[in-house]
């Protein structure tokens, strides 16, 4: 997807800074990408070709995704998107209908990485760069100890 279409969907990205870091792909989505999986789509829908843990409710509600990342990565809610030494963070976005629209994962630099639907992966300096009519706003930050920091 050319950068101008990305910037049309997410007008703040260009101002706040981003770069494209992968080709387009439709075999994984932003939730899988945040969870470190590039082989599957993580999606609660029952349509074939999607992954979702049996123990997590099959809804697009925020709490289902909090539970998903607890089960699939040991993440728990925290208060700040600021980088914290020894922790990895995930941000969950929700739209006006309160359903989850997107997730982003924090990089060691403090920047964020996102898979934009079927479009490319990007690295973006801020979460607010993706706040838009498409993705709504950040509703929850999760964190987990980095592997070498965990007991």
């Amino acid at each position: 997807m050319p950068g101008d279409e990305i910037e049309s969907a997410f007008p703040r990205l260009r101002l706040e800074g981003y770069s494209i870091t992968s080709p387009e792909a439709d075999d994984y989505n932003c939730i899988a990408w945040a969870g470190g999986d590039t082989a599957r789509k993580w999606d609660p829908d029952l349509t074939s070709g999607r992954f979702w843990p049996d123990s997590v409710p099959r809804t697009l509600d925020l709490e289902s995704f909090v539970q998903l990342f607890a089960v699939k990565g040991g993440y728990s809610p925290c208060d700040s998107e600021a980088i914290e030494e020894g922790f990895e963070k995930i941000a969950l976005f929700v739209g006006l209908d309160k359903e989850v629209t997107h997730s982003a994962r924090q990089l060691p630099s403090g920047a964020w990485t996102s898979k934009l639907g079927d479009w490319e992966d990007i690295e973006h300096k801020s979460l607010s760069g993706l706040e838009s009519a498409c993705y709504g706003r950040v509703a929850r930050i999760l964190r987990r100890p980095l592997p070498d920091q965990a007991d």
Partner: protein
Amino acid sequence: MATLNMPNTWAEQATPESLEQEFNELARRWRSETGMASFIRQKAMHPAYQMIIGMGKDALPFIFRELRGRGGDWLWALESIVRPKVNPAQGTTNFKEAVAAWLKWGKDNGYA
């Protein structure tokens, strides 16, 4: 009592060329407006995707052409259109494998 002489299906009104043209325009709109969406339900609720489902089996050759060429998440549409209920990708949690299973079904049934 007067009866309305209305065509039963979209396809009865359309030539193969106009049907393909209509599909192409709907698919273009759907890709453009949902490419950034993360979940199939958000993509499948788009009006253009629903209109393609409404084309019924006439859309299948075009859907398989897209699936084989440009890709895209057409599995909700396939599961909605194909009757009697068939799902060659039932239980598959990997998208690529599900697409491969549907492409094989499409080929075996003369759609792809």
